[in-house]
């Protein structure tokens, strides 16, 4: 697969306008998504990860407002390659109105924030699909699963006849591991895991380039969650789409994602490959988050969470928003906002927004074991109390 940038988010800002103060939910977020990449967005509730996803799909409604930035979508040329080299499934769905589609989608990148509603309608689902957290609420309870898939096809592929629509719906259900006779089932007749699979099938109906998954497995049990994740990985291999996977469960992302961005109080505080992040998290928050999950192996040791609680975004702390909870905070953190940069001028993929790694403020950057020591000190402190 050719690596090329599919989606580029630049300095995105989203505010919620509330009567008792504006909430800056997403602040100056920039990242890029490669073709075929799984990008994980992790953070606590209120860190802005879902808002970011909805901003990309332009699904935000007032009081949310996108106040600045660009979201460049680059459809590129690989779509043709993909259709010839890859699966027959894709071809089958697109053949009907391929010409119609191709002329509209231009070769250059476009800013999703500048598109009109009509243009968005062409992009959504065809290029950019979203899987919501609660499958029960995302499916229509009075329509069968099959009807809901065919509904999408009818709207977006008017050239397809009823037979080919049904054929495609059966293919999609098989793709996600549901027996075709479930086409006529209503959502309440399916189990939680099956519903989530059905939602994924609907999202894949038009072979999108980007799949945004907002906590797709949070409501599911571990065994079902594992099945869904395996399914996502398999489909990604097969169909070659990119995924933005949003979750609060960092341990999931460490298994699934290629790259992980950690969000805190509306900003990305660290972005790295999963391996780098797991082996040497730089930001104290990333370290704390990684160590909030007890492990199944190794010696049982006392662990600490992150002290304090997430900030109120109406009045975020000045400087680095994490400083009131950070065991390594120093004076600069309280006044100066750290920028997301690579470590000490190294040409590394791992980006971090922390003054500890800035030679201007701190000559000796801490190692992972230094972070561990500071957090361990907290454990003892709390047990004495």
């Amino acid at each position: 697969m050719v690596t090329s940038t599919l989606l580029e988010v630049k300095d995105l800002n989203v505010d919620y306008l509330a009567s008792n103060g504006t909430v800056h939910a997403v602040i100056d977020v920039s990242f890029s998504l490669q073709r075929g990449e799984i990008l994980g967005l992790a953070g606590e509730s209120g860190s802005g990860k879902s808002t970011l996803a909805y901003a990309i799909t332009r699904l935000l409604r007032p009081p949310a407002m996108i106040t600045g930035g660009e979201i460049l979508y680059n459809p590129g040329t690989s779509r043709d390659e993909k259709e010839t080299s890859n699966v027959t499934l894709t071809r089958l769905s697109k053949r009907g109105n391929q010409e119609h589609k191709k002329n509209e989608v231009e070769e250059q990148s476009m800013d999703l924030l500048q598109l009109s509603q009509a243009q968005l309608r062409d992009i959504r689902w065809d290029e950019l699909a979203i899987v919501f957290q609660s499958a029960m609420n995302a499916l229509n309870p009075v329509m069968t699963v099959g009807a809901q898939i065919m509904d999408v096809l009818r709207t977006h592929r008017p050239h397809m006849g009823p037979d080919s629509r049904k054929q495609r719906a059966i293919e999609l259900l098989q793709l996600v591991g549901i027996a075709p006779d479930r086409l006529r089932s209503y959502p309440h007749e399916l189990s939680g895991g099956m519903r989530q699979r059905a939602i994924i099938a609907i999202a894949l109906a038009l072979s999108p380039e980007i799949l945004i998954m907002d906590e797709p497995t949070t409501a599911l049990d571990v065994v079902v969650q594992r099945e869904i994740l395996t399914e996502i990985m398999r489909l990604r291999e097969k169909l070659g789409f990119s995924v933005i996977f949003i979750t609060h469960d960092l341990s999931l992302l460490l298994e699934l994602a290629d790259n992980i961005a950690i969000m805190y109080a509306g900003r990305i505080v660290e972005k790295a490959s999963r391996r780098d992040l797991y082996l040497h998290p730089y930001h104290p928050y990333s370290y704390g988050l990684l160590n909030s999950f007890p492990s199944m192996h190794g010696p049982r040791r006392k662990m600490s969470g992150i002290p304090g609680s997430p900030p109120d975004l109406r009045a975020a702390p000045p400087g680095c928003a994490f400083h009131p909870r950070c065991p390594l905070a120093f004076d600069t953190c309280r006044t100066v906002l750290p920028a997301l940069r690579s470590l000490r001028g190294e040409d590394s993929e791992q980006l971090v927004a922390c003054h500890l790694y800035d030679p201007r403020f701190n000559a000796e950057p801490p190692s992972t074991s230094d972070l561990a020591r500071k957090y361990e000190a907290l454990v003892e402190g709390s047990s004495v109390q």
Partner: protein
Amino acid sequence: MNKLAQLEGANTRHDAGPILEAVHLRKMFPVRSLNPLGTKQAVHAVEDTSLALHPGRATALVGESGSGKTTVARLLAGLYTPTSGTILFRGEPAKLTDGSHLHTYRRHVQLILQDPFSSLNPVHNVHYHLARPLHIYGHVRNKAQETEQILSLLNRVNLSPAEQFIQKFPHQLSGGQRQRVSIARALAVQPEVLLADEPVSMLDVSIRLDILNLLLRLKDEEHLALLFITHDIASARYFAEDTLVMYAGQMVEGGPSDEVIQRPMHPYTQLLISAAPDPGHLSADNNASATDLPARGEIPSLIRPPSGCRFHQRCPHAMPVCSQRFPGRTELGGGRWTNCFLYGDGGISSNLSSGVPN
């Protein structure tokens, strides 16, 4: 059937006797049917569950949603009446049928609920929530004592400065603070047993460990017997000395947490552990991620549960006998036991169950 003998074996492995014990608990919930002539149906939520809680020890009850773990907690808290079976408190059968007996029972056994957003009354402040149990159980006689005790409760759950929290309403507190208030409310009656039903699953990941550490500290300081209900097997290992695994209303395996998690015996426990997210293998050289699951599928309907062992339809090692009857408890030595024909059938001996009993 020599289940009684097995139970005794299970219960004598700690020096002090158990403070709260469930013996062969069963719970069925009748299902209303529109057809008056139709057969009466019921959800078989909990089948033949026995467990023992010891002072100063935490026991984790692990299972998927629908496995009946919350029902067990509610049976133990006296919120449901068991269909059959007994609850022993300090070795005496607890009478949980009328109000005054329940009142005495709840003086000793308290429940912490999952959702701190709905378990506190939004129109009352922290002071009210903590004063109620103190008054109901007669721990205070006057205003001065009341305030003093509430402040000490708030300090015990690390809500400081306590003077500020006392007047706050639930909506002014964060999720973690609310859960601390619920814990303080449970502690107010000075219980000996705390039943914690998924106490951290509604909280943000970064504050879950703080609440778990708080419960651990209280367990040690006040010598509480803790039942910790969770779906997260890694936190069971972190939190509890003993782990019990439930599947579809049946207890399938139990023993010391480390043993159960490092060397799972029952095929369901093996499945649960292989499915849990585990970033540990990233440190290994291979870059492989998702491993194949030994068994797929979900918990069966409990209205018409599968016969025999309820896991047999998903079990990769299922034998004909598995669908005929439920295996008895096989002691594996070292406090380990499992209900699985692979390791024997309870009383019927098998070479695997001949470990050294203690």
